[in-house]
């Protein structure tokens, strides 16, 4: 077993697997990767099972030191990582030598990235998952000086010259969405706003949800709390739209106007505040 030392932690670095499947009826959020597509790709490239825990990074600016040699891959956001004067792009297999230092600068595009290993990271499982969540996991994020145990796989993955195009650059700004239960309660012009109007991501976003700038004024009656899922788009009494993400609470008292599939949540997670998109309703 070897150790990974976090020399520079970045803003919001955490462990994520596919989340806490059980216990939603005890109020436990799912958690898991903000960009699940990139997370799955990372484990796929490292030939791991799809639920293997990866390190999730937000915006970059992370430096890691590895005690033992290992292979890694970084997926999701666009960034050029450096290790021992070699440069590695997103989705490329990174060879870390013994004592190697991996420098991940600020992402050039996108917001979330996944670091998977040809091997295993050892972190605590709490309530059936390694995903960090405040109050349930030991930590809610990594900080400078933290250490993490890992076991590199003995058999290396042969380097591939196949270049996997990253999904972020010039990604389509159409976001697939399905109608939520309250969609049908809206007036036609409000339904059309949701379908036709461009929406802008606000700064008000975290692992729980992303608030949008444009408002959809409405006169819907207040409602009692109902289940909410990752991907549920809520409409607050003030007309604000909130896209619920992976750490969102499991019930909510706001109207549920749309429901996004995992692929749409992944797309939105990578768009920075100020970016615009439209919902493509199915």
């Amino acid at each position, binding site marked *: 077993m070897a150790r990974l030392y976090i020399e520079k932690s970045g803003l919001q670095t955490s462990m994520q697997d596919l989340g806490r499947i059980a216990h*939603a*009826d*005890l109020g436990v959020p799912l958690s898991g990767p903000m960009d699940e597509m990139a997370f799955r790709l990372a484990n796929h490239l490292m030939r791991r099972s799809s639920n293997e825990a990866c390190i999730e990074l937000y915006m970059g600016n992370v430096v890691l030191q590895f005690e033992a040699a290992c292979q890694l891959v970084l997926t999701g956001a666009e960034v050029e990582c450096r290790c021992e004067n070699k440069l590695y792009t997103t989705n490329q297999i990174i060879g870390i030598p013994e004592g190697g230092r991996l420098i991940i600068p600020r992402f050039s595009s996108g917001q979330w990235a996944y670091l998977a290993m040809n091997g295993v990271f050892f972190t605590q499982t709490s309530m059936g998952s390694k995903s960090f969540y405040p109050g349930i996991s030991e930590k809610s994020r990594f900080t400078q000086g933290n250490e993490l145990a890992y076991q590199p796989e003995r058999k290396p993955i042969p380097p591939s010259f196949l270049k996997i195009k990253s999904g972020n650059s010039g990604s389509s700004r159409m976001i697939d969405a399905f109608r939520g239960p309250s969609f049908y309660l809206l007036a036609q012009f409000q339904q059309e706003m949701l379908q036709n109007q461009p929406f802008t991501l606000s700064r008000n976003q975290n692992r729980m949800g992303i608030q949008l700038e444009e408002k959809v004024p409405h006169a819907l009656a207040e409602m*009692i709390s109902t*289940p909410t*899922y990752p991907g549920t788009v809520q409409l607050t009494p003030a007309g604000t739209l909130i896209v619920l993400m992976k750490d969102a609470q499991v019930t909510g008292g706001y109207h549920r106007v749309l*429901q996004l*599939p995992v692929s749409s949540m992944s797309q939105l997670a990578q768009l920075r505040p100020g970016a615009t998109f439209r919902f493509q309703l199915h």
Partner: protein
Amino acid sequence: MNHPIQIVSIGPDIVEIHWPETISEPILFELLTVKNWLARHWAEKIHRMYQGYQVLGMQVNAGVDTESCVSELRDRLPRSLEQEVDRPQVRSWKVPVCYDLQLVPELTRYLEEKSLALSQFIDVHTRTTYRLYCYGFLPGFMYLGGLDECLHIPRKTNPDRKIGAGSVAIGGSQTGIYPMDSPGGWYVVGKTPVVFFKQGRLEVPFRPGDSLRFDPVSLAYFDELQQKESLSWEEWEEHG
């Protein structure tokens, strides 16, 4: 079947069962019966089960077709409700709560806003039996029904940055316990010594359908309970 039920699909992987939009015990028990039935018969289809007051939601596994789930449920649910074996087994609990102003100085603000005397407040808050409808907001946060109308108070317009774990609070027409530290807009009115989390595990025996009463305890007894290494909820079950 007592109540009209609507079964809908949302997107490619969510199926929901809706009861009429009202908070009612008969609806809760009907919902819980269906939930138990689903746990027995649909375990291999359901990825994650969600529960609100009158909505049961399920995320189905990849490859399960939601439209056929909807039609199958429409066929089978009426009969499932007749299954005696699925009726929820409800239990009754006492939850020790200390209302001492030394421990809970914030209670003064609530009492002032409501123009209530401390003894009056404790009397009303503890004489009610609350029904646990569902969990939400935070892991382990219970949505309890039954708060006496004379204790209702609008939520604070500016939420507090931190309400401590174990705080018993009132917001709007609801009362509840904060299982972990959290920002919140409710008024803190008491404190329970019982912990909801042990080493990252949620350890509560309460299940939707159960009933809870708040049992007033002195500051001295609160301290004693809090010092116990592992205070078991089992001691607080009420029988008969």
